[in-house]
């Protein structure tokens, strides 16, 4: 026990003297908390639209004005020719162009058929789809309101309103999901990056050989490494949690104890992964490459940035070996949905199994190296 305590003490000295590790511990979380929550939002909010009014009548002007009242659209002015239209679309000045044919009003008044042409810049397919539906809707509603002015007819128009109710995140705030996501990224970074770099450094400067010739056993060495980084990881997580609650105003709906417990286990998985990577890589650079590569795959598959639903089958299978996605599940369930230990049991069991497996693998590969 005394040996382990000495090792832990040594480790803390080492960490606080290493500029790179300190910068990962302090700068990385700051950058993430400052940038992610404000940028990661891909809901379509602004649709820009330009008008090509070949009619220049009262009716067409009224319609254009009507678009100005809608909150979805940004009016990007007028165009006058086919060339200008091409140009506006080519250079992404507008998303939609609405074109009124000549004699538009005349035709409508006379009861003849007339056609409004919409041209969409469809590279962003989702925007093109939803935008053209909005436009059709604005047009329908416009003609409905026009009709009300005329003598009453039996024919009325109706509109179906959608009342969106937001469960689990009432304010529908992107930060509410991004901030817990950042917590996951933080714990992962500390766990795997920092440990991997630290041990490989010992290898690079040869201190690991010195430890190997002392009576310190392998497991004592590993535990001595694990405890300090585990403490650092938990500290970082708690600081992140406090920031989340007091700065971003996101309260933890579920049980905080089970959240901390699950994080403790997840950290063990990541620490084990860090050990394993450090034992199989030759220098810090290589370790960093491997961790980065795994990290990118984990993040992509965990659904923090993009939905996982649209991924192919094989990606979903890989996800079963992705501890981050299980941990992300836990975080979401506890923080946003108010789950307790009962709801997250299966994830916790899987993470525990992963923790045991990866740490045994690390211990074995370490013994391999020593012999």
């Amino acid at each position, binding site marked *: 026990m005394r040996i382990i305590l000495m090792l832990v003490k040594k480790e803390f000295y080492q960490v606080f003297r290493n500029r790179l590790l300190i*910068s990962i511990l302090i700068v990385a979380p700051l*950058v993430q908390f400052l*940038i*992610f929550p*404000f*940028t990661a*939002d*891909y*809901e*379509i909010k*602004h649709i820009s639209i330009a008008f090509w009014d070949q009619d220049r009548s009262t009716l067409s002007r009224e319609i254009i004005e009507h678009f100005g009242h809608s909150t979805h659209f940004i009016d990007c002015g007028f165009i006058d020719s086919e060339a200008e239209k091409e140009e506006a679309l080519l*250079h*992404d000045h507008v998303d939609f162009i609405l074109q009124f044919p000549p004699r538009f009003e005349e035709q*409508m008044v006379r009861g003849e*058929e*007339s*056609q*409004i042409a919409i*041209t*969409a*810049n*469809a590279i962003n*397919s*989702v925007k*093109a*789809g*939803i935008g053209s*539906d909005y436009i059709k*809707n604005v*047009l329908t509603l416009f*003609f409905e309101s026009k009709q009300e002015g005329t003598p009453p007819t039996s*024919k009325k*128009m*109706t*509109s*179906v*309103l*959608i*009342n*969106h*109710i*937001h*469960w689990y*995140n009432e304010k529908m705030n992107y930060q*509410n*999901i991004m901030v817990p996501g950042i917590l996951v990224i933080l714990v992962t970074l500390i766990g795997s990056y920092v440990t991997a*770099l630290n041990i490989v450094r010992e290898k690079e400067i040869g201190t690991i050989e010195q430890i190997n010739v002392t009576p310190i056993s392998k497991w004592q060495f590993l535990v001595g490494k694990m405890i300090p980084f585990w403490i650092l990881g938990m500290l970082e997580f708690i600081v992140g949690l406090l920031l989340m609650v007091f700065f971003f105003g996101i309260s933890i709906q579920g049980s905080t104890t089970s959240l901390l417990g699950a994080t403790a286990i997840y950290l063990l998985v990541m620490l084990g992964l860090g050990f394993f990577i450090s034992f199989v890589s030759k220098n810090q*650079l290589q370790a960093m*490459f491997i961790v*980065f590569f795994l990290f990118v795959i984990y993040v*992509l*598959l965990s659904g923090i940035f*993009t*939905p996982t*639903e*649209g*991924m192919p089958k094989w*990606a979903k299978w890989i996800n079963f070996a992705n501890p981050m996605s299980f941990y992300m599940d836990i975080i*979401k369930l506890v923080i*946003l949905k108010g789950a307790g230990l009962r709801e997250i049991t299966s994830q916790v069991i899987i993470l525990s199994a992963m923790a045991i497996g990866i740490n045994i693998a690390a211990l074995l590969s370490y013994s391999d190296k020593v012999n």
Partner: protein
Amino acid sequence: MLSMPVVLIILFGFTISTEIPNAKISIYDQSEDVQSQRLIQSLIASDYFQVVNYPNSEKEIAEDFSQLQIKAAIIIPPQFEKKLISEKEVELQVINDMSDINVASVIKQYIETVILNFENDINLTEFGKTGLLKVSIQMKYNPELNSVYMFVPGIITLIMIIITALMSSITLARESETNTMKMMLITPVKKIHIVLGKVIPYMALSFLSTLMVLAISVWIFEMPIKGNLFVLLILCIVFMFTSASFGLLISAISKTQLDAMMITMMGLFLPTVLLSGFLFPLDNMPYGFQLLANIFPAKWFILALKDIMIKGATFIDIWFYVAVLLFISTLLTIFSVTQIDRRRAS
């Protein structure tokens, strides 16, 4: 090393997507009449959804969320048909699972699309609005509404940045780490030649990987190349120079290879993912971030790539983007070379 771009593009290309096929939903039909049936049919027919349950109370909806993992629940109010015919407005309730906001915002858009279509449909058939007004819609550049058109250019950019900037920053940092840079600087070789000699081999490698990435995007992800292939390649070479000059800058300000890698990841890769506009629309961001996005070359390159590959633009259409890229890379190269100069002086 050349296998890395291939692995990356296949991984990114298949996993970065905002489409959600067959989203599970529940429908709580409180009116069970002709029109509500019609609405349900149009929801099913839209191919966006898979209706997994028809609950009969709010409590059952809550159970569907926790047990069946539905993404949304739609509540059709009582007397839907009557209200639809006689009242001006009918309100549908849609309950969204906002704990996964990425999924929820896509699902919301799907639902809105279907409902809007339904509404236009009703007005047409029920109210005899055979419509003097016809609306024609042309989906320009992407008539099949393919979602890869949006993502693949961004992915190409990411991979080029990783390969070019990372490789050049690390090798240059290595030279200064092992002090071979100092040795070269005291020889009569000019600084600019040292830098070029260092960068050009990696440019050649990057160019090779760019070609592979382009080939995969065309063959596997079915991206078109509507514009001139020659112009596209020139654009790629310009962007490689810009990325390499970022690599140069990073190596000039970092002392070790590790520092270089950290700075590339945090200072270049991350902003490229977040601020290039390919994943998250720039106009949703605070103004400061929108301004910041202009400094990073990715935004300009993605715009130019889309113009050439999808819109079939010519060089005249994209000259501005190319000029911006060249400007950024010239500025960075000059700065880095003076930085190296200062190091020689010290």
